[in-house]
């Protein structure tokens, strides 16, 4: 179901979407964006890849098991939740460490958001790949 035009444009588009998704993820705290949207954007890119090249190729290109991505995301979220406890604050109380100008402010909130991003990507990819696999 893939035309040459689709295949030719898919690669750069996936790359661009991936970059945009990370951009959206990082800027999310101050401007429209965030882990959820970022994750969806990347999944959109991967869906494009899947339509163009088939599920095997997408699975190969991602390399990681979708479930591991989800698990990694959950782990990050839990870490972000627990770190404040270690520092003597409440569960999930935001901890800010330092800021990289024009990129992001680094802290547990960012870890949390990256975790959300990964869970979204992992789960959506899992569903896509399982459905497409025949």
């Amino acid at each position, binding site marked *: 179901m893939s035309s040459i035009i689709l295949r030719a444009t898919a690669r750069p588009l996936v790359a661009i979407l991936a970059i945009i998704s990370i951009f*959206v993820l990082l800027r*999310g*705290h*101050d*401007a*429209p*964006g*965030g*882990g*959820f*949207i970022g994750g*969806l*954007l990347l*999944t*959109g890119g991967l*869906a494009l890849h*899947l*339509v163009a090249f088939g599920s095997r190729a997408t699975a190969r290109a991602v390399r990681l098991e*979708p*479930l591991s991505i*989800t*698990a990694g*995301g*959950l782990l990050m*979220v839990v870490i972000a*939740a627990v770190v404040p406890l270690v520092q003597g604050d409440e*569960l*999930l109380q*935001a901890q*800010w460490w330092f800021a990289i100008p024009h990129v992001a*402010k680094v802290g547990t*909130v960012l870890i*949390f*958001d990256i*975790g*959300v991003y990964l*869970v*979204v990507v*992992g*789960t*959506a990819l*899992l*569903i*896509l790949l*399982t*459905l*497409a696999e*025949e």
Partner: protein
Amino acid sequence: MILLLAVAAACAPLLARRAGRGLGWLMALVPLGSAVYLGIDIAMGPHVPWAERWTWMPALGVDVSFVGDGLALLFAVLICLIGALITLYSGSYFAGDSRCGRFFAYLLAFMAAMLGVVFSDNLIVLFIFWELTSIASYALIAYKSRAKSARDAALTALLVTGAGGLALLCGFVLIGMAAVDMGVDPAQASSIAALHAVDLRSHPYYTAIVVLVLLGAFTKSAQFPFHFWLPGAMAAPTPASAYLHSATMVKAGIYLIARLQPHLGDTDVWILSITGAGAATMVIGAVVGLRQRDLKRLLAYSTVAVLGIITMLIGLGSSKAVKAALVLLCAHALYKAALFMVVGNIDHGAGTRMIDRLGGLRRRLPYTAMAALVAAISMAGLPPTLGFIGKELFYAAKLTLGPFGSGLLVVAVAANSALVVIALIVAFKPFFGPATEPAKAAHEADLSMLIGPWFLAGMGLILGLWPGLFDQILGSWAAASIVNQPVAMDLALWHGLNSQAVIVLALSALTIIGGIALYVAMRGRFRTAGTAPAPTLAESLYNGALAGLYRVGARFAAAVQNGHLTRYIAVVLLVLIAGVSIPLVGALLHPLAIEPISLDVTDCAIAALIAIGAVAAALIPTYLGAIAALGISGLGIALTFALYGAPDLALTLIVVEVLTVVVLALVFHHLPVHSSQALRSSSRIRTVRDVAIAVACGALVTGLTLASAAIHLPADAATYYSKTSVPQGYGHNIVNVILVDFRALDTLGEIVVVAVAGLGVLALLRLRRIAAARPEREAT
């Protein structure tokens, strides 16, 4: 210490791969260390309870608080000591079993939970640990997970103790409410220590509390009529049976009764129900026990009987009875764990546990035989063992009760005679009876499987010879924590020649003679005896209830989930309509105060776009076309979001729309091909029904939108967030700050749901594929 055990439990499976045979020794260090620590603590310090407290849920008055008084420490020492020996024993018992890491994990986790039960001062925390022991017990019984019988037995044990646990929780909550009623600070209400301040017996909830708490205790300690799960639990590996189902977990109910005795005890309800259940359990355990031929089940029933005796004694609550109960409890833990390990050795060495196939093992397993004899002497209640002292105290406590006691006494002597018989069957017949076929090939167990039975049997003997040891170390202190006043134990093997002592001694002699006579009479019947006993009434009730539950569940599932997606959607939507429309109609009856909004050309165009998309989706006869049309609607909605200042939502919705199209396209791959004819040919009635549901839904959502537009939110929500977002959340994007900071816990829950949903999809699709692949494989 509990934490340490939990950590050890978590590490066990990892270590199992490396350590192999040495695992038992390694793992035993943890509980052994705990036991030594406790021992030193008790030997050195004055007998003062210690307490530790961490705040956990202050709003609910639940603190993680631990108190170590005599009673708790007595149990803790038993748990750690026997735990260490059992762990050691398991190392050899499971030699060569690649999955044994899991066993150690469960065992140590159980140990941690059990310690939690006995040390908890907070009722809610106690309940949590209590349930953890049930779960650990489930995992241990079902350890041989390939065998259906093991899984069934585990489920029975879990359901019975779990149901009891629920009753217990209700009881605890009632205790808390009653305590608050009577003036205890709500923050302290679930603390056992705080209960000293009030007298719960005079509260109207008292009877309910007693019934509920006792249900919990009885199910856990296998008291009649809930005793049936315990013999079934013998499907567990022998070390687990020795530990959980004789020495520790089944004593948790007794512990609980003892723990609450000062607060709830000394009333007719309390005494009668506990002694009644205890006495009934004692008789049933003894009678049914005699008909068993599997050594483990035999021991299980004798455990039931002894648990009955101990329960009965604790319920009486006099200092004499409590003394007897504690001594019996220790004696039983020591000899029964030892005997279970002996049976494990026999099973291991001779390959069978059936009594009629065992005999003459004396030569083959000389060391095991020694331990068995000593433990059995304690079980039969012969001097000079702790079991003897316990039995004497038991009789003496009964003697002081008058006519009621005398009646019980007759029964008690009979039950104890049965125990003598069981002791003879377990320790005499296999070793000294005539040699049998499987016995000839038997081999002795190795050292780590002998230390346990030796040590425990030896302890029974040593404490019997020097009962003062038990007394000084812990006994008096533990008894004092139950009866709430100092207790002098005065344990001795020989009480001199006063009239009571003579009567008791005579009773002991009678018991033993009766037991031996019974054994001789039964000896010929081993071959024929022991067909599976008919299920008791309680057991059949339980089985019937379970089967009924399955049937109702199956029927309900078949009715609601018939496999047609349209039916599912219809059901969900109808429930939604029914649930929401009633309050909604009520709200719409009042005139709505909606601020008029002016629509410009763009708005109208977008609205038209959405409407066209929706109508087209309903009319277009092909799947792909319908999906595309639906996408138009979605994008129109996204445009609205973008225009009215919700860029986050708009962005998300656009991406979701795109992904939806892809996913639906993939899903339709799997569906049977519906041509347009097939879709049209669905019957007219169904079409009308579907249209009706759809229209109702549309009306509902419209009504909801109108109604919610009329509600003036407490304006502060938006202002609050826009004010606090930057100073408190360090972010300018309010939506994101809410998601990842202010309401991060919600997000956490949501993404877990997302992940679980993904797992669900995976499981469903994979299962279908496996199911589809199976017939092919069978055909080829």
